[in-house]
């Protein structure tokens, strides 16, 4: 089997609610997706989801590296794509392109065997522990409580992660609300908080210590800058809660300081970082260091496939059980708090061609990108609570 070409389609969709974190309390309601279709001479098409901002890089990598190659050589092809960009570094934009192509290559490898990806990887069909993540700073108390209630009652999710960082009193109150909602599924739900790098290490220590007086937290995520391995280590040594970090790192090498300096208690892994290939390598490296890994949110919850081969896998983030955009379907299901990977070949992702055509766009419109407002002022210095304008924007978003 040989790769013959690629097609990428950008599309716009509604997120389903107003999403935002400490860096964007005004939130956003629209998202942008991208379907990458890797074509072969065997009539099989490999699907990758993502890479909307790097379509030229995707085309160049297919032309320059993947074309004519057998997709079953997934590991080696990933290495060739990374090696091609040695000098400039295979991080940043090129990393996004490699990641989505690697996903499509693995989809093909599994489809060639007519088996689901989890089986190609060598996993057993385990149930995968997961938690609810609302990315909900813009939501009112009532709406966020309703959101976690739905995740607890409809899907049985026993853990939740709250976005925090701008307003300590609101955070304390809302952790309690999330806990209350999740107690519909479990007497002692797993409580996680995420500051998205908004704090300095000492801000994090003060905030988390105060929260710990009231709540038993399982982890605090990104409580300092992604590269601040000493700051993360300091927090780790100063709070009871586990420090979870890594989601914005690109490559395996970026994690070396974390490992060496024991900076994180839990390592975040995602195929969005650099692809499925390096995600597996990263999980193995963390395993050697006795560190659990957690998988981030993924389109169609395809991370459930990867979890089956990670002996140190802890839990997986779920923002949406059903894909919100109508463009694709997944056969990963969530039942009673556990994700179950399906049995369809490959990633189990199927594209609704008509819906994709209807929602297709040429460019990412303002406000629909993953981080439309960038980093928030005050980050690492002092907290700026949501302004009246931001609250108004969030309220408007909620109506929509």
């Amino acid at each position, binding site marked *: 089997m040989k790769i013959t070409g690629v097609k990428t389609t950008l599309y716009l969709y509604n997120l389903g609610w107003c999403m935002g974190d400490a860096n964007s309390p005004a939130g956003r309601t629209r998202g942008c997706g991208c379907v990458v279709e890797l074509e072969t001479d065997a009539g099989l098409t490999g699907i990758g989801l993502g890479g909307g901002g790097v379509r030229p890089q995707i085309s160049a990598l297919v032309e320059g590296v993947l074309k004519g190659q057998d997709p079953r050589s997934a*590991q*080696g092809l990933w290495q060739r794509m990374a090696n091609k960009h040695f000098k400039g570094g295979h991080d940043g934009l090129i990393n996004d392109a490699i990641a989505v192509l690697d996903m499509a290559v693995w989809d093909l490898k599994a489809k060639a065997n007519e088996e689901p990806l989890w*089986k190609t990887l*060598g*996993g057993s069909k385990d149930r995968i522990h997961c938690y609810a993540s609302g990315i909900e700073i813009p939501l009112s108390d009532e709406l966020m409580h309703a959101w976690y209630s739905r995740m607890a009652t409809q899907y049985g999710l026993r853990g939740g992660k709250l976005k925090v960082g701008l307003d300590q009193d609101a955070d304390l109150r809302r952790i309690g609300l999330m806990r209350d909602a999740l107690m519909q599924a479990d007497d002692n739900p797993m409580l996680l908080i995420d500051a998205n790098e908004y704090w300095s290490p000492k801000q994090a220590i003060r905030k988390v210590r105060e929260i710990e007086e009231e709540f038993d937290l399982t982890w605090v995520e990104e409580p300092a800058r992604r590269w601040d391995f000493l700051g993360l280590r300091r927090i780790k040594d100063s709070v009871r809660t586990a420090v979870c970090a890594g989601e914005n790192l690109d490559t395996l090498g970026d994690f070396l300081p974390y490992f060496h300096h024991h900076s994180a208690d839990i390592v975040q892994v995602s195929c969005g970082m650099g692809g499925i290939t390096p995600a*597996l390598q990263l999980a193995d*490296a963390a395993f*050697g260091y006795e560190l659990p890994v957690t998988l981030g949110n993924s389109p169609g919850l395809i991370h459930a496939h990867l979890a089956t081969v990670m002996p140190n896998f802890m839990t997986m983030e779920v923002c949406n059980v059903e894909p919100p955009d109508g463009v694709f379907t997944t056969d990963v299901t969530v039942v009673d708090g556990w994700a179950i990977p399906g049995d369809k070949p490959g990633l189990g992702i199927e594209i609704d061609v008509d819906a994709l055509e209807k929602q297709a766009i040429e460019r990412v419109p303002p406000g629909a990108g993953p981080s439309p407002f960038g980093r928030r002022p005050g980050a690492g210095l002092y907290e700026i609570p949501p302004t009246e304008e931001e609250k108004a924007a969030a309220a408007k978003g909620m109506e929509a």
Partner: protein
Amino acid sequence: MKITGYRTETYSFRLDRAIGDCNYPGGVDGMGGGFLWIETDEGISGVAPMAGDVEPLFRLIEGQDPREVIGLWRRMVDEVHKSGLALAAGAISAIDIALWDLKAKIAGEPLWRTFGSVEGRARAYASGIDYNLGDEELFAFYDGMAERGVDGGKLKIGLDQEADIRRIGIMHEALSKASDRPHLCIDVNEYWSPKQTIRYMAEIEKHHDITWIEEPARRWDHEGLKLVSQQVKAAVASGENLRTIGEFYPLVQHQAVDILSISAVQAGFTGCRQIAHLGHAYELPVSMMNCQANFMAHLAAALPNHVSMEVVEPGREHCIRFDSHIEDGFIVLGDAAGLGIEVDEDKLAQLQANPPVLTGPFPFPRREGAGLYVKGFQPGEVNWR
């Protein structure tokens, strides 16, 4: 597809030539071998060129789909949790290897492809395990490897510094046919203490540019290995006797070694790949150990940080056919499905019916004086002195 049964066979055989290191410099002229077959309900079976006590583990995999090899590896590892992996490592490795063979056969592809390699080849270095060989035999061995493009070699040393320095020169000369600057490695198989190593290496490095020294201290002595690495120019390689990723943790965290020696016979393909990935995160190369028919090259070919694989070829393939050869310095793997290994059952039965009488110390004991003082060659111990 479901696993329905298994079969193991053991046998002993004579090597085409004897092998020896500083722990048994007189050499051994044969060894024991084994096979494990895992059978399925669809007639395909997976084979591992090693056996082990599979019986207590088999109920964990019976009725399961062999393609779920990592899930099954976890079941086995979790099962032996309390007693530790070490006791069951041999059997788990054998099962894991046979399951990977099956997984590739089911996909109708060579195992290197299943692991995701593009080229299906792994760089090789020649390793004579040659303390028992005289100067001429030594030259002939490395010369033969150089003929096939192999530009690296590893010599067994440790008991006689003057002879060791001369013999490294012989290896160098033979390998010069393949490269102007061949990679010269030496291996002392845990016979020296760290400070003995540092003293000996100071002298050796006056004469030769050494790429790596292997096992220059005990396998677990991360402080000693680190001391050696800091004081010698050569890289320190170690790990071939470790069985789990957990045993590699101190070596990696303390930057004790420069190259991780790995083996699927010790850790299975599954565990071996985990260890390689750990090394990769730490920018550490890995080197695959030698094995019958070089079958572990299937994984080595797919590892991004594999430096080169040990090739000995003492003649261990008396009852198997295999699908690989050495060319231009690489182990080139064929396109036969799975490991590409077929067992000749007739020859196996013949070997079992007429077991050879083997000479040499089994199972490779430690030599007197190890880590304390060098007990030099005894009269008649090797025929080349």
